């Protein structure tokens, strides 16, 4: 009984009850009851609106995620293995890490126009420094002894990369991917809100203009559920698989 009380589902049900209570007490359109939100969610799914906008946002997420991860991984490994270049670029990396996402998004739209390329570029530029920093750290901590062993046994470049370097970098890559998904989808919403005519960010903007809080919450729930599923069904199993030798 006691363990049931502390189960994550219990906390979720408790939150719903709290939300319901607060909605009844406030009786305001600013906080619709859970039931009203789930009703909007159901209607939006049935009408096809939500799947369309969700699909558009997920497509942008996939493209920018792949670009940011591959570019960031390559640059991170390169800097991690070349001390002098790392020193040369280090300050720039810190500067890019601290540029607000909003500034990058606005500048990309100004420089490249209100198009898909600008939208993707804005997301990639925002995420890139984060991936570089994580993978650079991974490349710096590569086990020298194992690299020497691979050289002594004439592993060759490909075998060394696949069996010696890659497994050491994988936890860093997964770390970058997990924080990456969380960061990228927030930036994508901003990008869509400021300069696109479809996607979740655009829809949220519409709901905001109409003061439709139920719509905002319904779309948020759907999006968070999808991102959580990607985390639970793809990233976490990959992480577990990569660490199975530690058992």
């Amino acid at each position, binding site marked *: 009984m006691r363990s049931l009380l502390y189960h994550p589902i219990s906390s979720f049900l408790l939150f719903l009850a709290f939300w319901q209570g607060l909605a009844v007490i406030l009786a305001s359109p600013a906080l619709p009851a859970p039931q009203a939100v789930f009703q909007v969610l159901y209607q939006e799914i049935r009408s096809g609106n939500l799947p369309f906008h969700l699909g558009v946002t997920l497509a942008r997420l996939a493209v920018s995620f792949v670009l940011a991860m591959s570019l960031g991984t390559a640059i991170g490994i390169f800097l991690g293995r070349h001390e002098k270049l790392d020193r040369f670029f280090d300050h720039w990396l810190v500067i890019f890490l601290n540029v607000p996402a909003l500034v990058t998004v606005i500048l990309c739209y100004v420089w490249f126009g209100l198009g898909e390329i600008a939208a993707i570029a804005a997301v990639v530029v925002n995420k890139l420094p984060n991936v570089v920093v994580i993978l650079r750290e991974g490349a710096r901590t590569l086990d020298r*002894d*194992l690299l*020497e*062993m691979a*050289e*002594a*046994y004439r*592993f060759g470049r490909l*075998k060394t990369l696949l*069996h*010696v370097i890659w*497994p050491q970098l994988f936890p860093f890559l997964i770390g970058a991917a997990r924080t990456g998904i969380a960061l990228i989808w927030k930036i994508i919403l901003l990008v869509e809100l400021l300069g696109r005519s479809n996607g979740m960010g655009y829809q949220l903007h519409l709901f905001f203009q109409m003061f439709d809080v139920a719509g905002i919450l319904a779309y948020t729930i759907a999006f968070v559920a999808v991102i959580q599923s990607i985390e639970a069904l793809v990233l976490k199993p990959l992480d577990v698989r990569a660490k199975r*030798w*530690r*058992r």
Partner: protein
Amino acid sequence: MSHIHIDIRKKTYPARDGSGEHLAIRDLHFELAAGEFVCLVGPSGCGKTTLLNLIAGLDRHFEGSIRADEGAATLRIAYMFQNPRLLPWRTVRENIQLALPKGEGREWVDHLLEVMGLTASQNQYPQRLSLGMSRRVALVRAFAIRPSLLLMDEPLVSVDAPTARRIRQLLVRVWQERPHSVLFVTHDLREAIALADRLIFLSAPPTALLHEVTVDIPRGEREDETAVEAFRRRLIGEHQQIRDLL
């Protein structure tokens, strides 16, 4: 099998305080006959590991040459390091097989695993193994590539005495089964006498060859500690340089 000539005229490192160079090895020349078991004995920090790294090709910054009669290209070098250096994310079997060209030597590896008592552990990850077992895996990996030269850098350091004795016996057994040159670094004179055909004593840095001795105890009597101890006493008694070194 190849006769190997080691000729290192000069090996330097940048000095730690940045002021010029530190001379690590100077005029070190010796030869290794095909199938010969040679132990390099010297005090800690005398550059034994540096020497093995040069021979293994891990460090190419030196003056001199390391060559085999049949040409360097035919020289298959295996290196057993002080720590086993196994890939923790690969099983015992995979660690060994990775050192070999794809699909090669399965039966030989099976045989080595059996001799070393590792058949039952071949699908385990290295983290599950004791230090002694990990050393045996590293030994199998070294033998698996059928080396013409096996380099061993104090491979039994920090292993308890009975385990070290067992690994030594296994090492000699497989080496006799398939003879190849072995260069075994140690600072333990008893271990060196128990294993080697010839002992090479190295000086403190800059490393140079101090003395060479042939071990004339028959292989069958090497496990007899009295014979080894008698040889050691004779060696120390006869050579002041060795006594000072140890």
